[in-house]
């Protein structure tokens, strides 16, 4: 196998570069759980997982409440996904992380 062929194997098998990142979250509107993304699926995704996770954390901090029930406008189950909608590991812990995790039974 030539070096160039070997590099192609590495590129296909190991180097999985996401094209971008989005913050995925859920929101309760009229007792209905809606899943949304930020930025929207039509818009350009963020190019940095660091920025995406910081953004997710800020959304969580801005909308969280201490009440057990979910308020209108509160964002729950906030995490970062790549362009294929796969969850992205939180870079600080190298684990899958979800901000404001809630189990919903609607």
């Amino acid at each position, binding site marked *: 196998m030539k070096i160039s062929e070997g*590099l192609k194997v590495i590129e296909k098998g190991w180097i999985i*570069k*996401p094209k971008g990142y989005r913050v995925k979250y859920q929101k309760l509107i009229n007792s209905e759980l809606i899943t949304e993304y930020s930025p929207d699926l039509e818009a350009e995704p963020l190019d*940095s997982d*660091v920025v995406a996770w910081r953004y997710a954390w800020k959304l969580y901090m801005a909308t969280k409440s201490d009440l057990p029930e979910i308020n209108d406008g509160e964002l729950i189950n906030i995490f970062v996904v790549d362009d294929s909608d796969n969850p992205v590991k939180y*870079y600080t812990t*190298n684990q899958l992380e979800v901000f404001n995790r809630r189990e919903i039974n609607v």
Partner: protein
Amino acid sequence: MDGFSVKIAQMESTMSLYGREVVIAFAVIVFGLILIKWINQGLKRVFKKLPISPAKGATVRNIITVVMSAALISFVAIQLGLAPRPVVRFLAILTLGVIGLVVVFRPLIPSLPFKVGNTVKIGNLLGKIEATTILNTQMRTFDGKTFFVPNRQILNDIVINYHFSDNRRIKINVGIRYDQDLMKAKQILESIMIEDPRVKPKPGPVVYVLNLTNNCVELGGRCWVDNMKYWVTKCDLLEKTKYRFDNEGIAIAFPQLDVNYYNKSDLPVCTDQNRLQGHGVAFESTIEEDRIC
């Protein structure tokens, strides 16, 4: 009549003949210049809102200003009684002459190695070029200060223009302790760079062992990114490196100094053989001289 009185009389006759036209021409020039300046400022505001680069906007504004100034001069000359055709001819010849001179002597004219909007480093100043004039260059540094750098100084100094190349190489240098798994650390650092979407696949990221220093094994990660994404990508990669090393149990080295303490009885006896082998270094002055090598 003396000479002065004659001159006054001549001026009187001239003013009585052409005075009205001169006053009108003067008023037109003043009003015209104010109007041109006002239009220029209006265009500047409009171009800021349009999706065009500041350099292109400035060029278009300059062309419009020159055309308006030429039209104003022609109008004033005609107001003063000159025939329109010679005025237009003169301006056309003048324009062609200036263009010809610029084309011929352009390679010899020292020009600034940047355009408005470029990010450059001039000497110790790093910032964005906001405007250039014949005398100086207005530059805004990233901490918000505006510097007016004389062009003479720029032409004599080393200038780095970060817009000349599309890509830029990032250096991630990190030192790990000697007792750490070097291969694992290399793999982690390489993975961090490879997995980042902003890092270019070609040339691919690489990790070198740069140095074996007193305190650490120094690793150097190298990868290429878009020029415009250099700074943020570098900061992100450094942050991710710290966290991933922490999570994977790779300890980043701190400056350290090992001090070996010997008891008096443990010190080797000073013999020629020990001296040659470099044994027994003592720091205390109370130690017997024959034990110190």
